[in-house]
Structures are given as structure tokens and as C-alpha cells.
């Protein structure tokens, strides 16, 4: 008789059940927020309307009026897109150099880049605030794009590096022999071959930029304020405006949830550094 691995009962039933429980636990706050967003502000705090209530679209219809939603949304889109593009613009050549022309220092450089993610952001909050204010960059989109790019560069370079590593060196060398210069190698060979990986990386970077709150909240007031700032700035006193706040919050996370839903596969691949095929 051939020896085969037995599938355990846990693997068959237990694991999916556990996954569902964890999934629902994470999803519940979002579900609750969306639910509340369809209640009037008055209904939102009444226990008898916890589940049963008359749904209304009022909160969404008045979003622009109440919160100037679209102005913040526009800033979020602009800063996240620009920061993602800039990050790739710097990250692709950097990862390319390390993947195909490694030196003895390459490993250390990679570790050093990752280590910058371990620096507590709060430690540089005051220097950042004073510095940006004194050079007049405070509350500019340029500053937010730079900050978002810099905080995401390490992870983006790491991801791209692991994707590029999978491209056989011979193919790049064949390109060199065929008369391609460095820029040509990147444009003609590297980008087309690593397209999937680059797209996953870009997507993840975009999501991180969109979700970023620490710096966008603290380094903006009005001109460059993103959706994070909008929500943070409108924390209502306990019980006040729960309905309309839920609606605008839902509208802030909505685009990213939808994007994430459609790109699940790429995201999982990105987050596992391409280990899942």
C-alpha cells in the first residue's frame, strides 16, 4: 500500500471554521459602521434601533455638505497615486540594482532599510513638524507625497527585490549581450517580466498610502488634508452624529475595500512575497 498523508479532521472542518470566526471578528466593526451609516443620527444611539430601524440614505446624500467629502477624497487620491508612482520610480531601479548586481553590502543595505521601519514615528514628530513648518512645506501635497513615499519605500524595495530575484540572471545577461543598456534592461525585460509582482507591490503601496493616518493627520490642516484627516478631525462627542460620521467613514474606507476585494489574489501574493502561487 502506498503511504499517503492522512487528512486530519481538523484540517477539513476545524481550520475553515476558525478562519471564518477570525474573519467575522475582523469584519464586524466595518459591518457595524456600514449599518450605522444608514441610520439617522437620532436612531444611531437608541438601543431599540440597534438592529431594527428604517434605513435612510440621508447621511450619504448630505456627506458633501456636512463634511466636504470630495475635497478630502481628491487629496487622498492625488497623494496616494503620486506617492505610489514616485515610490516605484525610485524602488524599481534600486531593487533591480540589488537583485542583479549584488555586492557584499547588499544584504546589510536591505536590512538597514527595513530597520528604518522600526523607528518609532513619534520620535521624529516634533522635528518633522518644526522643520516642515519652517521651510514652508507644512500642509502641502508635495510633503505628504514625500512622506508617504519614504515610509513605504523600504517595504516596496523588499517586495520588488524578491520578485526580481526570481527572474533568471541569464535573461538579463542575454539582454546585455543583445546590446541593451541599463535603462533598456529595466524597460524591455525587467518590467514586462515582473509585471505581476510590480502590480501587486503598487497596489499594496497605494493601500498603505491611502490608509496612512499618523503623518497625514499631523502634517496637514486644510490644503493637503486627506480622508484620514477628515475622519480624525470630526470625532464627535459621545453619541453625537454617529450616523453621518459612520457614513463618511464608510465612504473613506469604501474605495480601498472594493479595490482590495477585486485584487485579493495579487494582494495575498504581495503580502507573502510571492510565496503563494
Amino acid at each position: 500500500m502506498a503511504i499517503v498523508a492522512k487528512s486530519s479532521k481538523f484540517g477539513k472542518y476545524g481550520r475553515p471554521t476558525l478562519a471564518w470566526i477570525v474573519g467575522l471578528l475582523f469584519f464586524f466593526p466595518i459591518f457595524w459602521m456600514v449599518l450605522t451609516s444608514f441610520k439617522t443620527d437620532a436612531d444611531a444611539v437608541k438601543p431599540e434601533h440597534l438592529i431594527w430601524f428604517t434605513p435612510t440614505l440621508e447621511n450619504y446624500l448630505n456627506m458633501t455638505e456636512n463634511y466636504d467629502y470630495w475635497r478630502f477624497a481628491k487629496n487622498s487620491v492625488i497623494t496616494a497615486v503620486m506617492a505610489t508612482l514616485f515610490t516605484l520610480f525610485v524602488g524599481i531601479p534600486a531593487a533591480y540594482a540589488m537583485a542583479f548586481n549584488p555586492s557584499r553590502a547588499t544584504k546589510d543595505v536591505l536590512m538597514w532599510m527595513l530597520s528604518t521601519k522600526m523607528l518609532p514615528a513619534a520620535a521624529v514628530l516634533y522635528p518633522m513638524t518644526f522643520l516642515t513648518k519652517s521651510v514652508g512645506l507644512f500642509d502641502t501635497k508635495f510633503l505628504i507625497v514625500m512622506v508617504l513615499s519614504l515610509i513605504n519605500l523600504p517595504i516596496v524595495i523588499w517586495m520588488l527585490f524578491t520578485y526580481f530575484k526570481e527572474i533568471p540572471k541569464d535573461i538579463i545577461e542575454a539582454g546585455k549581450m543583445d546590446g541593451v543598456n541599463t535603462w533598456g534592461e529595466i524597460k524591455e525585460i525587467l518590467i514586462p517580466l515582473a509585471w505581476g509582482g510590480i502590480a501587486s507591490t503598487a497596489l499594496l503601496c497605494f493601500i498603505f498610502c491611502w490608509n496612512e493616518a499618523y503623518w497625514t493627520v499631523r502634517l496637514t490642516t486644510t490644503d493637503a488634508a486627506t480622508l484620514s484627516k477628515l475622519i480624525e478631525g470630526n470625532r464627535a462627542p459621545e453619541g453625537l452624529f454617529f450616523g453621518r460620521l459612520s457614513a463618511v467613514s464608510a465612504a473613506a474606507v469604501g474605495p480601498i475595500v472594493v479595490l482590495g476585494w477585486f485584487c485579493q489574489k495579487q494582494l495575498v501574493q504581495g503580502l507573502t512575497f510571492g510565496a503563494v502561487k
Partner: protein
Amino acid sequence: MGRIVLKNVTKSFGNTQVIPPLDLTIEDGEFTVFVGPSGCGKSTLLRMIAGLEDLTSGYIEIDGDDATQVPPSERGLAMVFQSYALYPHMTVRKNIGFPLRMAKMDQSEIDKKVETAAKSLNLMDYLDRKPADLSGGQRQRVAIGRAIVREPAAFLFDEPLSNLDAALRVGMRLEIGELHERLQTTMIYVTHDQVEAMTMANKIVVLQAGVIEQVGSPLELYHKPRNKFVAGFIGSPKMNLIEGSEAAKHGAQTIGIRPEHIDVSTTDGMWEGKVGVAEHLGSDTFIHVHGVEGCDPMTVRAAGDMSVKNGETVFLTPQSQNIHKFDAEGLRIE
């Protein structure tokens, strides 16, 4: 034109020296084969000529110009890799035309050249396929096509046939040979297969641990190996090397005799031994004989219809004009 000169070239990876100072000249139009055991530095040497590997010291001249610092893309050499290294995202047509497109040639001219190359390599039916949909032999031909369209100063091959099965290998060997006849372009070919080296080369460079042991035509190497290493490496099956009193009779430390230069008899001869394994190839029989002093087992090539049994006693007589003599340093004595 493709005359390549290496002067005092060395290569170290970190602290390990892979190529000690080496000089070599490859004449225009020559088919040169680098051969040697695994890890001896053949690929490293080829890659240095290609420009894919920096020199630690020394310099390289291509057609009289110093090319040491010239990047690979500007050396005008074409390379065929063991792994084929085709661009997986491009069709065969795009792959072959790629170097021409990079040279900013007109599209109509590229199309013409790609068609000509594809015709000569029997690739016309596959032009619109991606490399993943081709067999190993077809991929290899695409890689060769990509090299020939450029009309390079020289072709560099790094074990291009070692991923192919035996029958295909023989076919491709002939095709590459014919290509050389037709183009008369310099070719440098790396292999560890001495049969490939013998059949294809005008000039063989035998390497061991980064050192050139001998340079010469296939027959020179066969008839006059400069030392014991070359003697043992060139020729199949390997030359028998005999030490001790038998060698002393010829005034040498070691004598060598090829399996095909030994006569076998069941009745009488110079040396006596017992048959170990006999390999019947049909055309020939290779007999491994035990018990000859100074060389155990000794390999002998006999006629295909020779029937000997395991344990049978045989007598061997070397053809005296074909005995190679080597001194204590392993160098040839004339």
C-alpha cells in the same frame, strides 16, 4: 572580423583566484573550444570575454582594440546560453529580432533578417509562438537565431547542448558546425564533453583549475598530449596510464597507451590479465582487464565481434609507436 586576444588575464572571486595569469589568442574565423573538468573556469573565462564578468587584472583585445572596459552591449559579441535565456514574454519573432530592434534598425529590415534566420534554422512554423511552447531543441535554435541576426564579431557558446537529449545533441552539433562553415565567424564554444570538443573545434583549449594545459588542433592533442592531464582528458575511453617497472623500461615515470592502440589475444602477448567487464557496443568491444602491473583496470578496445567472458585470461600488446612517455612532473618526453 573577430580576433580576440587575452593578455595576462586573471580573475578572483573574493580571495579565491579562479584564473591565474592567462594568455590566449583566438584568430579570426576560428572555432575554438574551451574544454576541461567542471569548475575549471571555462564559463568564467567566456564570461570575461563577453564582458559579463569583470577582469581582476590583465586586458582583452577585440580586433586590435582594448575592450577591457567596454560594456557587453558594445562589444559586438553574441552569446548562446546553456539555459537558452530567451525572453519569455516575447514571441520567437520578437526574440530573434530583439537585438536588431535595440540597434534601432528599420522594422522592414528586421522582418527580412528574422525571416532569413528563421528559414535557415527551420523555425518558420513557430515564429508566433512564445518560448514556453517550444521544445528544447527549438528553443536552442531560437537562441542561435537571435545570435546570428546580429552578425556579431564572434559567437560565444556556453554548453549550449547540455540540456538536450543525446540524439538532438548530435544533430545540433552538426548544425552549429555547418553554421560555422557558412559564416566563417569566430566561435568560442565551452563544453566539458570532449567528444563535442574533438568533433567541432579547429582549436581546443584544455583548461584545468584556470590554467591552460594545452592549446592545439584536435589531432595534435590526441597524438601529442603535452602532459598526463591532457592525455587522460582527450580521447574516449581514456588513455591508460601505466606506472612502475613497465614505465621504467621506457625510461619514463609514466607511460600512456590508448585503448585503441592495444592488441588483444587469447593466446599470447606482452601483458597478461583477467577480463573484468566487457562492454559490447556492436561496433567495438571495450574490455576492462585486471591484473596488469601498474595499471588496474586497463581498458582495451577490441573488435565488435570479439567474445570474451568474465574471468577469462587475455594477453595484451601495446603498439610501440603509440606509447606516450611522461616524466616525473607529468610532462611529455619525446
